[in-house]
């Protein structure tokens, strides 16, 4: 049975890595965001391992000397997570490069459309037209008078 009491060193490492990762994540430079993501990823991988219990022998059958092995399930989860982090890093770096190609920097800018909506809402202007809500205008009778189906006029 795996010892399920927490390991203080690993807990501290997880905490510090998360704090550093979050601090960088809140930056505007995409490179820093990415570095923060990698730090966070490492921290969470460790967290998953810690949650799986104490250290032990590698989970390989038939290994000597025998003893309590570490939990293999978190390891399988973390292994794929590590490789996916690599893919994510590559992708975000490609985005950083693209951002540099277009803007000559890799800063994450504010969304212009969101700002526009916020500005218009602040002065109670409409951001779009919605015919369903226009007050007044034409009456039902006026509209009905203009509405005709595509019918065949009979023979006079």
């Amino acid at each position, binding site marked *: 049975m795996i010892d399920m009491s927490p390991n203080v060193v690993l807990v501290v490492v997880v905490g510090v890595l998360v704090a550093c990762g979050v601090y960088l994540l809140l930056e505007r430079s995409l490179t820093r965001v990415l570095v923060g993501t990698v730090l966070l990823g490492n921290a969470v991988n460790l967290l998953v391992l810690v949650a799986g219990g104490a250290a032990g022998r590698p989970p390989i059958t038939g290994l000597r000397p025998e003893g309590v092995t570490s939990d293999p399930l978190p390891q399988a989860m973390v292994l794929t997570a590590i490789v996916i982090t690599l893919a994510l890093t590559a992708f975000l770096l490609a985005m950083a490069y693209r951002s540099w190609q277009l803007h000559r920097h890799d800063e994450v800018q504010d*969304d212009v459309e969101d700002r526009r909506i916020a500005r218009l809402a602040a002065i109670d202007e409409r951001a779009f037209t919605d015919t369903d809500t226009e007050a007044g205008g034409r009456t039902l009778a006026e509209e009905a008078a203009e509405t005709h189906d595509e019918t065949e006029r009979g023979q006079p």
Partner: protein
Amino acid sequence: MLLAVHLAAALVAPALVGRLGRRAFALLSLVPAAGAAWALAQTARVRAGDGPVELVAWVPSLHLELAFRLDTLSWLMTVVVGGVGALVLVYCSGYFTSSASGLGRFAGVFLAFAGSMLGLVTADDLLLVFVFWELTTVTSYLLIGHYADRKASRRAAMQAIVITTAGGLAMLVGLVILGEQAGTYRLSEVVADPPPAGPGLTAAIACLLLGAVTKSALVPVHFWLPAAMAAPTPVSAYLHAAAMVKAGVYLVARFAPAFASDPLWRWTVGVLGSGALLLGGWRALRQHDLKLVLAFGTVSQLGLLVLLVGLGTQATALAGVALLGAHAMFKASLFLVTGAVDAATGTRDLRRLSGVGRRLPWTALAGGLATASMIGLPPFAGYVAKEAGLEALLHLGQGWAGPVLLVVVAAGSALTVAYGLRFWWGAFATKPVVAEGTPAGDPPAGRATGAAPADVSTPSLTLLWPALVLAVLGLAAALLPSLGEDLLAPYAATLPAGEPGHLVLWAGLTPALGVTALVLATGVALFWWRGPFEVLQRRVSRGPDADAVYRRSMRRLDDLAADVTALTQRGSLPVYLGLVLLVFVGGTGTALVAGTSLPERVRPWDTPAQLAFGAAAVVAAVLVVRARRRLKAVVLLGVSGYAVAGLFLLHGAPDLALTQVLVETVTLVVFVLVLRRLPPYFSDRPLVATRWVRLLIGVATGLVVAGVALVAPSARVHAPVSEPFAEEAYEFGGGKNVVNVTLVDIRAWDTVGEISVLLVAATGVASLVFLRRRSGQIFRADEAPADRAVWGGAPDPMAALRRSDARPAQAPGAPARPEWLRAVRTLAPQRRSVIFEVVVRLLFHTMVLYALFLLFSGHNAPGGGFAAGLVVGTALVVRYLAGGRYELGEAAPVQPGALLGLGLFLSAGVGLGAMAAGGTVLQSWILETRLPLLGDVKLVTSLLFDVGVFLVVVGLVLDVLRSLGAELDRRAESGEDEVGDGSSAVGAIGSFPGAAADDGDDDTSPRGSTEGTGTPDPDVDARRHAGSHAQVARPDRGEPVASGEEVRP
């Protein structure tokens, strides 16, 4: 079955109309006609109370069944829906011009609506009722918005769907409450045995009525129905007279036997029904458009119908359903007549119509018959039904409610008489155009056109006979009132209260007859003095216009949405992430503090070495945060990552450590490849204040996660699922390395998903760089241009020191000296390093061999597809670093997309193969043979799966190298990217990527290590880790593992 026919017909309708033109409508009309015919054929069984029942389980977990049942009420509705639907479709075939737009779509939606309606009235499952209810809403939306290019049409459709969907959702809530309270979702059982009264039931009733009120356009949401007249007239005839708006009436009638005694039900039905009855009639008298007259008339009649069927005595119910049938006949007929008049004259404005009756006598006759039925003249169906209704109200005997309702109904009927006469007179009578009914202030449509009556042409016969059939049926039904009573009485008998009513043509001189006479007289008087009456109407304050209220509230809703959007969508990524993290800290932190306690005992460490690696990881991470140079941050990140790999190893996870080391290495290289292009320093920090905020959020999140890490291990209450993994892995997966078997066998589905993510990411990287292509060309050494050297962009400070014969191009006669690597000649001379070339030459094949070893031994020892793929990836990285992009092309002359695709195909294909062989998906098969030469050979099919993983990982690394490495090199050399101000450190472009890892804050020029030997080459570093780890992992074998260390010169 019939529903399926409707559905199929709806699907083929567009094609049919496309081929046959408008004649297809006549053919399609057979479908609803079949529905009506089927119902008529079942008449005898329905009367005997033994209607057909059909039951198919659909979603048992939701109690959702395809339950259908035909009882008296359903029978009536089916006949109406099918019969009127068929006639209207026939009418359509003559109504639209053959060139009218969107006829195919119209026919399809129309039939889909007919099918939904049929399903709605026969469904015997509460949820199924809702499904069909919403289907009618959607199809009706499409039909109202048929002329999608007209603003009025679109607005009317939107209004209708907003209102009816709101009601429909409320109804769903009511149905679910009802089903849960009753313990069954079978409609017939709920009605037969209603749940006991209580707050739940009251809520359910309120929600149900909300649905009915919106669908049947009662006050205060009646306004959508007149607006919906923007639909083509046949749609108005079918949906807004005969079928859809009756759905609300149907719902009320369906539940009346169970809930009519509830006070909320009675008040709602009474007040809203009366309101609609009076308001609709009142407004109808002011309209000049024939369709609007009828539309408001329909609102009025629907009010009366809901009132009658909802009151809950047997007599009123009988009158109600009789009126329901009668109304379907006369109102549909009137709409069809209106359409004919419209088609003949080109207008529906009753001020411009004159003498139409003389030109179209038969149409006028049909209209006359239908009008007579509507206003309740004997001997028509409307009269019979209304008479029964008055009789029932006279004997209602519920205190003052009976007399009040009687007065209301009488008044409403008088208004009906008035607007009925107004309709017929307006449509057919010979009168001076711009009649006296146009007081000043109204838009004088007639006057504007010179006050000439509209021309009348003779429409085709197809526009006449459906209307005439319906009108004559109204007369015929009335002549046999006892038949109607026989057919409909079984429904009325299901109501618990009151005496049974009767349908008779002549009941003698009863008080009801007196009321009818009074009503007729008043109505005629109202019509006669219509001029003064209109003036009176104008003077009476109208009060708030429901339509305007609707629009204002929609406007408010939009404003609210904009405000909420402005509040929450600040458009700033840090703010979003900060909010998410704060919610995480708040939520998880609260749960931590409130719901957990500290573990009873903690261990400081498993082994003291953890302290060293942990300290390294922490210190490096803090330094990363403080770093101002990009490169410094990235290198420190790598240090932190390697330290974490050490922690993995100490934890007993050699696979993880191996993978982590390799990934950190490749990550570092990828970072450096891109950082060549980015400015060397991070831009100026934002304000100090926000820095503190970020620090605060970071520390808080770190504390919470640490808290989670502290309590998570001891929170476990069950045995780990992984406990039997070791045995399972060996028995079923045929491997000793539990982690690897878990990946390729036990949790293979997850792995398939994960390598798919890799594939997507790799494709994304390539797409972001190549933009218009999946990937670029493969650079081969013999295609390299002679005039331009790779990485030759920067000046060569040591060119003078170089021996001239180092350039083979300058010694054309001599036989070329063989090089260590094939494509190094493409490099600029100052970028070459012979030592590095030799090392790479020796290393590359060893690494690939080692990767294969990892791949094949991974099932039993640390390794596997992920690690093997990363080792090959690292080998490719080394080749690229030593020899440039042409060397990469020589090392891996394949497109990465092919590798990725093949890998995923192999992995997933293994799963399918196992399925084809009779096992479950991704099941492993163990092939064990004993070959004398090789010893025991044990081949597990999941090895193929691992090969797939391997290929995907190799493809990923290759994709990254080719796009972020080779393609960026090419662009830098051809100057494609150089449009900026040069702030991107032009000197760094084309610099040797590996050498740049030699970081120092004072070292602003990466060219400082031009003759880059790649000394701190992370790859060699990686080999060292991997090698030492392999020895740790395999102490019992002691076999030398091929790794970088042994073969280094």
